[in-house]
């Protein structure tokens, strides 16, 4: 098990338990191998101990009755730890107050994310969806072994026993045994081949608003992030990276940097020049003093305006087809009425509150990593490649991540690879190194949500029915040239570039979606809700324009086109009902707009209400959100993710943009890369659709509809459509 021995704070109960269980004894564990929905259980050697029962890779029960759930997913704010613990505790019939969560080690054989295949990682709002059956079975098997142990002790049949709140009962003889008293006996029980899972109507924890397991430590400052890791002799490294994407180090003069008190070393790595010091402040001063000459002969030197100009031209050329129903060209020619629009989307930074950081301890035969690690086995493989080690020699301690929004999961493992490269350049001498990015590094460092250009055309017949839809998208591919490309990119189509557009839910008989993929050296990455971060805006803003052209209100027009999409239609209706949707306009200067999306199999509709003053200042007053994510494991966390997704998405459409001027990023910090602040947060109401379907994700989908819902509300208030993101500044509005 992973041990967060880097903890510098007072011993916690968790740390104590981990210490207590370090005396190993014989036991067993279950390794699940999953391929789709089939499962094979196999007994393998295990870390049960004299003081604990570890029936499988996902939980451990202590003699002190503690239940430690092993989380294969990172906790980055989305509530994964609480969700994971809830699923296990439910089938185990554990006492919730005794449940703890510990991060799993990097291990694709035990901790793969089934949505990704044989990789351990978190993303695509998949943590609950891919853990659901796996963890229910893990909990149920452990429960069965505890019950078997009690039945043997009491010489009764298992059918006579019941379990509640971490205690096994034999009602007939009034005997009872807490889990902790059964750990030794349970470890000797055979692993059951088959277990019966609970009927959802008997759920006691799933569906309740249980408090998050991570909240107390995040309120008193004791939660441990990578920033907080301190190891004996550790050095802090800041890396000077090229000012242009694609530039490399030509030469450097370490003299002035090395003269700063506290600076220990200056080393060159493939990504730039690193200054290592005894603390952050010395490293920062050293880096400021460092003189580097860059070779920018292969660097991107264009401005983002020039890139968008090129995209506009590319959009007029033929491009690979992502979807083609009927004959959209013919239908547009035959239409009674046509409309067209283009939408422009900027690069966006993720800007998680914790700037990227990683701690690495590298020797000739081992590499130990501490990070808010979102892509464990990819990071493990990349670290091993850089270090010249076998992946088995790389261990990862996954800590709380101070936000990510996709940034910490990247195929190149950029910040992990940088840290390992620095440790290697220092001689792999076992001295721990903490690589710390600053906010400027974060905003200048790339891996942005790509820029996109969308061109849309639609045709309506005499009755105002939508008969034609043509959608062209231009932009970089997130998946191209990554290890995911062979599986993901087919016939020139990266599905993450067109999701939400090629998968448009509306019934339109003649529909085409084409994608032109561009390539240049600005590094890009998925950003919260991935393709739907731009496609939903284009589709939902343009369908609103079509509704206006048809003389209908946005709700009624959409609803008619969703007759065959019951779950999407249901969230649309629920949001409209709760918002008090009306065809009648709001008072002068105010407006309401609606948008709906499906992302990661979750359906979300939002109604926005805005006020716009005469200068064009937009105030988003209220967002009403309806969500269908299947079984809501924790409805309060579902609501929190919708609230947070709305604030995140709203900040992006109001202000978010990374721009290049002659190849240089123009934004440096939160003054020039504006994000949503307290005074700009609307009132948010969230309604969760009751459902017995399997759970789907909630971390990302709430982001998708907010931008177009607000843009459509601004149109209702002002009569002006928005086609360039972010929204215009008040003076220009």
């Amino acid at each position, binding site marked *: 098990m992973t041990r967060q021995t880097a903890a*510098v*704070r007072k011993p916690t109960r968790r740390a104590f338990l981990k210490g207590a269980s370090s005396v190993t004894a014989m036991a067993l564990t279950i390794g699940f191998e999953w391929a789709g929905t089939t499962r094979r259980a196999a007994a393998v050697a295990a870390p049960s101990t004299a003081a604990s029962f570890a029936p499988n890779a996902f939980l451990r029960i202590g003699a002190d009755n503690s239940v430690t759930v092993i989380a294969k997913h990172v906790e*980055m*704010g*989305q*509530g994964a730890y609480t969700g994971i613990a809830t699923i296990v505790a439910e089938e185990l019939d554990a006492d919730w107050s005794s449940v703890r969560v510990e991060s799993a080690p990097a291990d694709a054989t035990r901790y793969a994310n089934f949505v990704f295949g044989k990789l351990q990682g978190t993303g695509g709002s998949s943590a609950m969806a891919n853990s659901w059956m796996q963890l229910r079975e893990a909990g149920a098997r452990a429960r069965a072994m505890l019950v078997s142990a009690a039945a043997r002790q009491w010489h009764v049949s298992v059918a006579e026993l019941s379990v509640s709140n971490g205690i096994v009962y034999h009602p007939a003889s009034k005997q009872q045994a807490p889990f902790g008293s059964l750990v030794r006996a349970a470890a000797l029980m055979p692993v059951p081949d088959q277990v019966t899972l609970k009927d959802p109507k008997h759920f006691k924890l799933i569906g309740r608003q249980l*408090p*998050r397991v*991570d*909240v*107390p*430590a*995040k*309120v*008193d*400052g*004791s939660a441990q*992030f990578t*920033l*907080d890791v*301190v190891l004996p002799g550790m050095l802090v490294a800041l890396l000077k990276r090229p000012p242009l994407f694609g530039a490399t180090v030509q030469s450097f003069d370490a003299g002035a940097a090395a003269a700063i*008190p506290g600076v220990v070393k200056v080393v060159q790595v493939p990504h730039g020049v690193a200054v290592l010091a005894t*603390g*952050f*402040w010395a490293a920062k001063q050293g880096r400021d003093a460092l003189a580097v000459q860059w070779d920018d002969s292969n660097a991107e030197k264009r401005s983002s305006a020039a890139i968008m100009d090129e995209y506009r031209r590319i959009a007029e050329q033929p491009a690979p087809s992502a979807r083609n129903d009927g004959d959209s060209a013919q239908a547009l020619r035959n239409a009674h009425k046509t409309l067209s629009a283009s939408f422009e989307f900027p690069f966006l930074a993720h*800007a*998680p*509150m*914790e*700037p990227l950081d990683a701690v690495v301890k590298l020797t000739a035969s081992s590499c130990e990593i501490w990070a808010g690690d979102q892509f464990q086995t990819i990071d493990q493989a990349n670290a091993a490649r850089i270090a010249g080690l076998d992946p088995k020699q790389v261990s990862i301690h996954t800590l*709380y*991540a*101070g*936000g*990510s929004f996709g940034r910490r999961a990247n195929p190149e493992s950029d910040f992990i690879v940088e840290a390992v490269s620095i440790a290697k350049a220092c001689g792999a001498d076992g001295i721990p190194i903490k690589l*710390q990015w*600053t*906010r400027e590094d974060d905003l200048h460092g790339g891996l942005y949500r790509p820029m996109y250009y969308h061109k849309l055309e639609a045709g309506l017949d005499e009755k105002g029915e939508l008969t034609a839809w043509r959608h062209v998208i231009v932009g970089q591919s997130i998946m191209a040239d990554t290890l995911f490309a062979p599986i993901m990119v087919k016939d020139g189509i990266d599905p993450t570039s067109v999701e939400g557009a090629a998968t448009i839910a509306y019934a339109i008989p003649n529909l085409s979606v084409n994608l032109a993929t561009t390539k240049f050296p600005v590094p890009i990455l998925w950003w919260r809700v991935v393709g739907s971060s731009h496609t939903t805006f284009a589709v939902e803003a343009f369908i609103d324009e079509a509704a206006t052209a048809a003389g209908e209100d946005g709700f009624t027009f959409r609803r008619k086109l969703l007759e065959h999409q019951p779950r999407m239609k249901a969230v649309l209706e629920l949001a409209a009902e709760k918002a008090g949707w009306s065809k009648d306009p709001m008072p002068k200067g105010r407006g309401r707009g609606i948008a709906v999306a499906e992302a990661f199999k979750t359906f979300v509709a939002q109604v926005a209400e805005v006020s716009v003053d005469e200068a064009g200042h937009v105030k988003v007053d209220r967002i009403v959100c309806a969500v269908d994510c299947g079984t809501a494991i924790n409805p*309060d966390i579902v609501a*929190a*993710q919708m*609230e*947070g*997704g*709305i*604030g*995140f998405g*709203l*900040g992006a459409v109001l202000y978010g943009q990374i721009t290049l001027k002659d190849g240089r990023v123009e934004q440096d*910090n*939160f*003054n020039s890369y504006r*994000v*949503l*602040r*307290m*005074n700009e*947060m609307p*009132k*948010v109401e969230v309604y969760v659709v009751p459902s017995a379907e399997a759970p789907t994700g909630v971390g990302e989908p709430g982001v998708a509809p907010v931008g177009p819902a607000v843009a459509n509300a601004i149109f209702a208030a002002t009569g002006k459509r928005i086609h360039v993101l972010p929204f215009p500044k008040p003076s220009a509005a």
Partner: protein
Amino acid sequence: MSTSFVLNGKPITLDADPNMPLLWAVRELAGLPGTKFGCGMALCGACTMHLDGQAIRSCVMPLSGVDGRQVTTIEGLQSRSAKAVQAAWIALQVPQCGYCQSGQVMSASALLEKNTAPTDADIDAAMSGNICRCATYSRIRAAIHSAAQSLKA
């Protein structure tokens, strides 16, 4: 050069560059890591501490600026209003990633020390310097109102 001040009620002397920001002096030299680094330019509020009871951004406060003064960090919060804030944060399940929350709690408790019945406008004024990328703002607002209510009791 050494700087002496009172940190969480206890006198401390740090021998360090007087220009070192208080944030790093407290985190790395005094060993209290609850206060976070987010921007280094007083733009995000993750590094908020109390200096003589006022909320300040420790990432731009030179160590020399706190000589002889009282500094409180998230680890040293003791006041009734601070405890009310933390209790409300738990009751309303405010944090998500949690990284900014030390700073949010520090700003909110400084607000309630001065203003026991803040309006929404007061909350906007006191809290708009604290960024939360998880956008937990609705719950922060509700928790501040809830903490203010509990202080009346």
